[in-house]
């Protein structure tokens, strides 16, 4: 009897590994193929051999001739850093207000943050586009950043962390005569490093991969990586000759995030899953 049970549980473990291996390979394959193609020699791009050999950076140099990769990378980095930083700051201040005080319009304010979930981009895009036009921010990087400076998700996640933050620490600090501003930076923030770091990663990845808003604002300049890639794809067409450089640009558009992922894998996964669960 025990032998049967043991046998069954072994089988379950083996089949579990098999399922996950198949799934993992299926998920990773397109990413692998992207980089594999980009690293082939330009004359081998259409080859279907599973390993890109001999390796070459030829597609990357050709891509650099065709597309201004450097400035696209710079712009995208700038936009996602500034967006994430702004969202972090506004989110921290708002979450602090919700956690450290009880105030009259608290519930209403909080509901306004939660409510943004229900407003899809497509509903607000037109008036926002018109406002950016009036402000003269169309086709500027500022036009991409400014409307995204507040992340409701950031407020909600930080509030949940702050709710479990020991109130005694905040009270003790105010008793000592410190202002609420000083309390925030000397007591709250140092004790909130881990969630703040997780949120920063989440916001960085999200704003790096954001497509809709930049596509709307930068219609003429295409000055960010994904937009540059899209206009490259549309202008060169997908007639076969440009697969190498296209894969090179696409690879570069994902590379910073993947490097971050390799270093901070566990934090990134848990930041995404936890943000989803709450």
């Amino acid at each position, binding site marked *: 009897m025990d032998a049967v049970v043991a046998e069954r549980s072994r089988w*379950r473990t083996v089949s*579990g590994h098999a*399922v*996950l291996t198949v*799934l*993992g*390979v299926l*998920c990773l394959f*397109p*990413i692998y193929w*992207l980089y594999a193609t980009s690293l082939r020699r330009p004359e081998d791009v259409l080859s*279907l051999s599973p390993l890109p050999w001999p390796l070459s950076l030829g597609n990357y140099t050709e891509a650099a001739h065709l597309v201004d990769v450097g400035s696209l990378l710079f712009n995208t980095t700038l936009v996602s850093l500034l967006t994430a930083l702004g969202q972090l*700051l506004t*989110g921290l*201040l*708002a979450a*602090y*207000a*919700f956690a450290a*005080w009880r*105030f009259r*319009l*608290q519930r209403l*304010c909080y509901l*306004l943050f939660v409510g*943004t*979930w*229900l*407003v*899809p981009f*497509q*509903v*607000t*895009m*037109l*008036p*926002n586009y*018109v406002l950016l*036009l009036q402000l003269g921010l169309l086709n500027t990087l500022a036009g991409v950043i400014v409307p995204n*400076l*507040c992340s409701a998700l950031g407020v909600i996640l930080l509030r949940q962390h702050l709710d479990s933050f020991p109130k005694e620490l905040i009270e003790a600090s105010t008793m000592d005569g410190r202002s*609420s501003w000083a309390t925030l930076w000397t007591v709250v923030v140092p004790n909130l490093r881990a969630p703040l770091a997780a949120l920063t990663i989440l916001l960085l990845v999200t704003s790096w991969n954001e*497509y*809709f808003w930049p596509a*709307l604002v930068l219609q003429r300049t295409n000055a960010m990586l994904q937009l540059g*890639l899209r206009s490259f*794809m549309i202008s060169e067409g*997908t007639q076969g000759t440009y*697969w190498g450089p*296209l*894969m090179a*640009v696409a690879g570069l*558009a*994902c590379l910073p*995030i*993947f490097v971050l*992922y390799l270093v901070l894998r*566990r934090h990134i996964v848990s930041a995404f899953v936890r943000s*989803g*669960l709450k």
Partner: protein
Amino acid sequence: MFVEVPAPAVVAPPRVARPSVPRRLLRAAPPYLYVAPALALLVIWTYRPLVQTAQLSFYSWNLLPTSPATPVGLDNYARLFTLPAVGASVWRTLEVIGGLLPFTVVIPVLVGLLTQRIQGRARAVYQAMVFAPLLVAPVASATVWEWLLDPGAGLLNKILGTSTNWLHDATWAQPAIIVITGWHLLGFAVLVVAAGLANINRDYTEAALIDGASRGQITRWITLPLLSPTLVFLVLMTVLLSAQWTFPLIDTITQGGPSGATTNVYYLLWDYSFHSFDAGLGTSAGILLFVVFGLVALVLVWLSEKLAFHDN
């Protein structure tokens, strides 16, 4: 806004004289000041446009600052209900959501149940592998899938020995978009299910095992009911994320085509506003989308709260 705000929730003994009005205002101000930047951004970039969208939906306007918007009453809404493109796009949106459910609910649950035993380092490696597609920039994904599915030299057609134009053929384009979106979201959903399963108290299943329940019975009567809030969340996520993830793929790969085969509601809204420059039609469709989203979310949140009682 500040005028009517009373003193903060200090429980003052009634006999003590209340502090003067300016003093009370000063004491009530800090939380509002801290919440102000985020709230202002939210009002300017989410709620103001929501209201304006509602207003614009009663006007006819071609987006040109020089031409005036003329009020047309409910005409835009009436047009929405008569345009065949609208009905077709709603249907395609439902197809997208329905087509995504296997990727975001069915497969993740199956995988979660089959692989509960795998723990430790191996599990972390698998999780890292399946999660990666969520981090791929959508346009990069569009590029690599164009290449994989290329009718001439693409890997899939070479393997199958066919030359199907998966992404630009009216039959295949919509399923292809669904599969690509599903590929992005699958790993994330697997991890959400895994987290949901890990939260289920082991005592229930062990008690059932001692009572002689079979694996299938445990899954059917204990695990799945306890997992139901997670499942409701995944459905909600599918509905909300379908808008966000299909759009860049459609905009880069098919532009809604071929002959409208991939034009779902989200793309149609974009098309009306920024290709046809029909602000009235775009905004009225947007308002309807907002209402439907709200109803769906309400039902699902209500459902998940109802189901959440299971664990108590």
